[in-house]
């Protein structure tokens, strides 16, 4: 059985996901000691700027522009509208060269070896449901249910799966939900028209469970810890990260917070990009 981590990187005009993927691949090797493969629509850019040594396999994706637009914040006071090229996440089932795969967002910063153990799991599909906002000043309800009157929220940020018949059905279902998004978002009472993989995966899990809460998806170890793009990643040294997190009711003010040895989903892509630039400059 082949095992590895799979990343997808599709750059837009503002966010360099390829750079994030290279950075994450190095941390995965350091903390998980697993091979990493990447699917990207910017293969030439990857080869010319970063080289190919960090990846086991590189899979070329066709360039597709996206009309899925959203604001990317850089702290509480700065934001840019850019395309959110999150389509075809479910293709990972076909694209992954591994029998057992962890698919990970490129802004998930690995700082420990906790996820390594999932390859021994008796479950064929693991995903995060429980999550913790490290700032604890925001309403977390949006990460508990996909809408006020709807089903449980699952994070598509990190997923472990084996290539099984059931999982093939699941990933095909996610593709279908994505294609028919305007229908499914209404059925599941999602007010925003923005397509999100978290929502599509949550809906697919609900359907796979017979339209109820069930055991199709088991939980990855620990909690999904995250900071939103209203926070700023300020410093990173080995497994230590320092954040400036949004201060409740004080727009533009922050509280310092340090994590050690904890995996964090860093949604502020701009501050992550600045930290990666610093790290690469020091190498």
């Amino acid at each position, binding site marked *: 059985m082949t095992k590895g981590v799979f990343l997808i990187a599709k750059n837009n005009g503002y966010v360099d996901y390829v750079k994030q993927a290279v950075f994450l691949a190095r941390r995965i090797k350091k903390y998980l000691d697993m091979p990493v493969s990447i699917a990207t629509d910017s293969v030439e850019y990857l080869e010319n700027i970063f080289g190919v040594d960090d990846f086991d396999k590189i899979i070329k994706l066709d360039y597709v522009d996206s009309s899925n637009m959203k604001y990317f914040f850089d702290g509480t006071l700065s934001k840019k509208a850019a395309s959110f090229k999150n389509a075809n996440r479910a293709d990972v089932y076909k694209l992954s060269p591994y029998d057992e795969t962890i698919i990970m967002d490129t802004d998930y910063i690995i700082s*420990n070896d*906790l996820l390594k*153990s999932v390859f*021994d*799991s*008796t*479950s064929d599909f693991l995903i995060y449901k429980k999550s*913790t906002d*490290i*700032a*604890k000043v925001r309403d977390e309800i949006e990460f508990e249910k996909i809408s006020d009157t709807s089903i449980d929220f699952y994070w598509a940020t990190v997923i472990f799966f084996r290539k099984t018949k059931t999982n093939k059905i699941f990933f095909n279902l996610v593709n279908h939900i994505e294609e028919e998004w305007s229908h499914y978002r209404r059925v599941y009472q999602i007010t925003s028209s923005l397509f999100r993989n978290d929502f599509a995966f949550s809906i697919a899990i609900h359907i796979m469970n017979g339209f109820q809460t069930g*055991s199709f998806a*088991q*939980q990855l*170890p*620990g*909690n999904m*810890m995250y900071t939103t793009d209203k926070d700023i990643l300020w*410093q990173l040294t080995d497994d*230590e990260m*320092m954040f400036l*997190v949004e201060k409740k009711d004080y727009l533009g003010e922050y*509280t*310092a*917070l*340090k*994590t*050690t*040895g*904890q995996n964090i989903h860093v949604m502020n892509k701009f501050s992550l990009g600045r930290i990666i630039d610093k790290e690469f400059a020091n190498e």
Partner: protein
Amino acid sequence: MDERLEKALDFSNYMLTLNNQKRLLAEKYQEGLIYFHNGSQFTVTRELITFVSVMISAEQDEVVVIDDNSIPCLVNDINEFYGELLNTYTTASNDYYTEYTKLKKNRSVEKLVNYD
């Protein structure tokens, strides 16, 4: 600003950061308590340790325990399992204690987040 208020706000800022760091440490402790056995995932609790200990006292050779995902797991070597549970629990708790003690000694925001 009134000096009394300024000092109170400084302390308030310090407490905010201290509480945040304590919370993150508690999260890390919970991750440290996770133990994997035969593909099953367990968060080690005093209840689990006591249950396994009772089963050993009752001279059971093997035991079925329910993991974090509500999946039953057959443990064949109960003594080894017990040893691993104890090891995971004590290692995580000792680390928690050490880190917590260190944290409490830091009397400024800068020291709490170890910012140079």
